[in-house]
């Protein structure tokens, strides 16, 4: 059915309004964070609040970068997040492949258990995990934090990759088997190259989860050598005093790596999400 021109105009207007609302909803907090980071403390508390800084200052950024431990916290976050990402993608890939492709007893249970493990709330797990890490001598270490994060990133990556692997035709595995490839060779040489977008998505999600995580970081590590930036930011809330300028400047700095990665991997993310999550 051909739409009339008035219907088209109404459709476009509604779409445009929807996009504007969605953009405002998404970008307004980021705008406010950036603008606040450029204000003096007095202006932050001004009434009425200013939409743009009257006298923009980079002092909050200078303090965060050169007069605080924040760069160290960001580096710790990056180290932990990269380790979690690599291990999650590798383990997730190795766990997802047999569940997606092979027939064995307990396959369905394993798949469901993985989803359940992902759904367990961290607030229930942090004390048992603390005990485990304490007994392993890994409290207040980045290794311990990586292990803790793997408890939710590995199930998540496995679950996502199961769905993605199922979208790849089984005939490819069969052809590789006929050519004499082992299961591992099939996975490494045939399946994974095709599953790059899916891997990119799970890696990105694992990285984002680890980068943004707060509760475990707050409880499991405490020294400046191990603290991640999310836990470090709490140091800028001193009782009833919020150091808003530095908080916002530090948040802007912390957003940058994620932003760069998302922009760089945008194509993979769209492909991976479309193929893995929707069809899976």
């Amino acid at each position, binding site marked *: 059915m051909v739409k009339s021109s008035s219907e088209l105009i109404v459709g476009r207007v509604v779409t445009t309004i929807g996009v504007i609302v969605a953009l405002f909803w998404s970008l307004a907090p980021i705008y406010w964070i950036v603008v606040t980071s450029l204000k003096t403390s007095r202006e932050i508390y001004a009434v009425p609040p200013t939409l743009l800084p009257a006298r923009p200052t980079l002092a909050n950024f200078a303090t965060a970068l050169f007069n605080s431990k924040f760069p160290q916290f960001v580096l710790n976050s990056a180290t932990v997040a990269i380790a979690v990402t690599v291990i999650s993608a590798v383990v997730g890939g190795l766990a997802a492949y047999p569940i997606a492709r092979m027939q064995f007893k307990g396959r369905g249970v394993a798949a469901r258990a993985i989803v359940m493990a992902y759904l367990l709330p961290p607030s229930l797990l942090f004390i048992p995990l*603390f005990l485990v890490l304490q007994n392993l001598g890994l409290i207040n270490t980045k290794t311990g934090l990586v292990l803790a994060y793997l408890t939710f990133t590995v199930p998540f990556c496995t679950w996502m990759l199961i769905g993605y692997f199922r979208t790849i035709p089984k005939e490819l595995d069969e052809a590789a088997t006929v050519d004499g490839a082992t299961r591992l060779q099939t996975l490494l040489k045939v399946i994974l190259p095709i599953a790059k977008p899916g891997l990119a998505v799970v890696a990105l999600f694992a990285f984002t989860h680890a980068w943004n995580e707060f509760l475990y970081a707050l*409880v499991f590590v405490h020294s400046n050598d191990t603290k991640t930036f999310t*836990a470090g930011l709490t*140091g800028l809330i001193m009782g009833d005093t919020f150091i808003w300028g530095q908080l916002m400047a530090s948040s802007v700095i912390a957003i940058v790596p994620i932003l760069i990665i998302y922009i760089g991997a945008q194509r993979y993310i769209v492909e991976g999400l479309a193929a893995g999550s929707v069809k899976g």
Partner: protein
Amino acid sequence: MKKLAMTLLVSAATLLPFTAQAADLTIWGLQAFNQQADDLITEMATQFGKERGIDVEYVVVPGNAMTERLAAALQAGAPPDVFMQVGPQAQYYAKLGVTLPLDDILATMRAVPGGIYESTVSQVMYDGKAHALPLEVDIVPMFARTDLLKDVGMEVPKTWADLRTASQAILKANPGITPFGMTLSSANDAESFSRMVVLSFGGEMFDKTGKTITWNSPETVAAYQYIADMFAEGTIPRSTLTWDDAGNNTAYQTGRTAFTINPPSIYQWMTQNDPDLLADTAMIPIPVGPGEKGRSANLISSFSWLVSKDTKRPDDAKAWLNHFFEPARYEEIIATVGGRWLPIYPAQTQSMPLFKDTPAFANFDEMARNGLVDGHAGPPSATAAAIFNAKIVTQSLQRMLVDGEPADKAVAWAQAEMERVASAQ
């Protein structure tokens, strides 16, 4: 892609050498309200370790994270050797049986010329022993805008009646200002501040033995009614029902309120950011309530040091506390904190330029000496702390202000709830 993967793998591999390196003595301290003070205490702890030949780790823990961290560490059987908490919490940890008595160090502190503010000691006593050491005094004055008072031809209020009259005049002259910024949500500030109003009117939570709850009294009802009347006439803003602990700070710092009650963090902010507002501000004692039982009820608290019962180094832990409280070293810490902590030694309040020469602190010595503690007229107790944590007082105020319950009924409800909490202890 392969290069990227290799880079990531190498980065991950760098994690491997990071294994646990437990210090000989681990100390968890609450954030001291500015970075310089935290750095100074860290440096002192390191220096202490060098002098004693042990490895000392000083960990700065944000106030809002200490309870969770301690809970996890205690559960795991790995608490820090020494830790800091806010005063009333000392009772809780002592009751759990996880702390060492520290009477010997308290005796050393008391022996310093001028002694210590004894008003803080009851908070750390459990079963007749000092299970913690108060390391400062938290004074909570009223902040008053002298310029707004001057505009309406009034002085700083000395009584709650004065405060209401002044608030009405300020509201009439400045409709954009909500005069009394009293937090009435379920934030900790609201629990503390509402106790101060009730205690000023002569109300009390416990009798002197600390065993009988005496909240339901004509004085408490009068205090509730006073709050309800100001709320109804708009001299206490309705928005106070939603404020968090920073709500009254923000209201005062943005010039939207003429009076509020708060520790000197507002003062610190003004010294750093708004000298004009500071010049128009007086920090005054809590106003006096009506009638024979009326008084200026300033509720004090303090940060305290505790030593874990399971520490393998009790002598080193106690040596650290003696090191910390050595008067000259301690004075340096207090000076660096910059006014948020009043020294535990009255002699230092009288001698340190920060307090002696700053008019804003003129009333602090008297307020510290005469301050009341939570659970008044009884001693601080685990029951009083449990009642505080249950937010019963603010809930009863909200029943009155939001649900329209009469003041006497709201007070009676609070009494019943307090008795219920006490019986569960």
